């Protein structure tokens, strides 16, 4: 690796444009986090390989009351080792106000061999906010041992905790590939849907793996997924799979189960 570590802070703010569409009063890319827009959609385009060991990246997105925003990435994010084995940090803060909708659907995060990355995603939702958020982690590129990766997802709604989960993989996380955590699989992901409509009509817990025995006792080969209602008005799809493609298929299927009509 040839470049020095960088510190970058990108910002997005979405507001209603008064004509039923979305305005972006703030769209500020920084360093490796270049931002491109089209209508109500923002794409994070990697302007350089990142995160690299030692990088400190931050991305804040705010969806003001009544606005809609979709954010994705142009490609998978690959966590790479830096010059001195330093850890990199990627912090995302998402704020969604009342009657606002955020679709946060980045491509997978891949932990390359020797990398060390810690990500935090903090989400603050107003009571009337809606959210679809997907996170996918792939442990190592094809055929390699993964680096160290820890991801924390903290979601608060109306100021109270709704979901708080941390996943850690690699050497510093004993048992990560064992039968309690990933069972030797290399791709794991979650899709979270928060919608006040779930207050009255929560989803039912349901397994999505298809090659099960009738009693659901056996894990399938390619992957397993689960839809669960959280303790608040939200549904979580959790999937573990042998590769990124299978993972995405399971999460997509979960999303269709949870979100009937697109919103």
């Amino acid at each position, binding site marked *: 690796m040839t470049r020095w570590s960088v510190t970058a802070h990108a910002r997005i703010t979405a507001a209603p444009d008064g004509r039923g569409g979305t305005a972006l009063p703030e769209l500020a890319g920084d360093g490796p986090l270049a931002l491109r827009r089209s209508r109500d959609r923002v794409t994070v385009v990697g302007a350089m390989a990142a995160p690299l060991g030692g990088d400190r990246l931050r991305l804040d997105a705010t969806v003001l009351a009544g606005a809609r925003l979709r954010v994705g990435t142009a490609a998978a994010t690959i966590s790479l080792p830096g010059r001195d084995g330093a850890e990199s940090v990627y912090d995302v803060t998402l704020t969604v106000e009342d009657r606002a909708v955020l679709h946060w659907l980045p491509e997978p995060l891949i932990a390359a061999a020797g990398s060390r990355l810690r990500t935090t995603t903090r989400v603050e939702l107003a009571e009337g906010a809606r959210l679809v958020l997907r996170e996918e982690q792939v442990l190592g590129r094809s055929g390699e041992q993964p680096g160290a990766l820890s991801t924390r997802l903290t979601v608060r709604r109306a100021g109270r905790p709704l979901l*708080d989960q*941390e996943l850690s993989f690699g050497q510093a996380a*004993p048992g990560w590939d064992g*039968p309690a955590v990933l*069972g030797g699989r290399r791709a794991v992901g979650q899709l979270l849907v928060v919608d006040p409509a779930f207050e009255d009509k929560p989803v039912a*817990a349901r*397994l999505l793996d298809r090659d099960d025995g009738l009693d659901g006792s056996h*894990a399938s080969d390619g992957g397993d997924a689960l839809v669960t209602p959280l303790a608040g008005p939200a549904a979580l799809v*959790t999937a573990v799979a042998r590769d990124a493609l299978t993972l995405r298929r399971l999460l997509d299927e979960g999303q269709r189960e949870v979100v009937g009509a697109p919103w």
Partner: protein
Amino acid sequence: MSTHPAPPPPPAPAPAPGGAARAALLVLADGRFPAGGHAHSGGAEAAVRAGGVHDPDSLEHFCRGRLRTAGLTAAGLAAAATAGLDPLVLDEAADARTASPALRATSRKLGRQLMRAARAAWPGPALDALAAARPRGAHQPVVLGLAAGTAGLPPHDAAHIALYESVTGPATAAVRLLSLDPFAVAAVLARLTPDLDRAAEAAATAARAALHDGVDALPAASAPLLDLAAERHARWKVRLFAS
């Protein structure tokens, strides 16, 4: 049981100085303490059926993962309850840290059973108040932490008990489910003790931080396969263990 509305639980009493309550640690951590834990396998029964746990080595791998995820998260909540954080806030934090409804139900059921035993053993206003506020059961680690505090134990000891339970449950269950050699399983537990001590330290440190920074400072480590296995297990018609 009082029918009056519950006052907010007062903070747990300060721990006895100098580890004077050490024997209480043994009573509370003992598998024979009548808190209902023996009926639960901590996900081991589902992992055995799925083939992931089949011998002492795979059991150790399972337990190492469980210790560092569900165990550490429970230990942080327990230590924070002992340290005096509001148990109802911790109960909500436990909900947010438990994505599986089957695991939320199990944790509350075990919390209710532990509450009954703990109030008999170490009666006190903190346990009474939580029992009144959560009549169907608070999350088990929160009850454990309050019980430890009432018994005069420090947060670090509450973390140790939560972590110890997180591996002894699966280990004992695996002996029964797989007819494993009990000596080999005792050796597995012995090999886990350095990890367990480190996790207890981390949980106690996080609990101290949470006194100032709130519950977000507590561990939230999760394990996807434990969630999947719990939901699968809850759907079986016939099973040896309740979870």
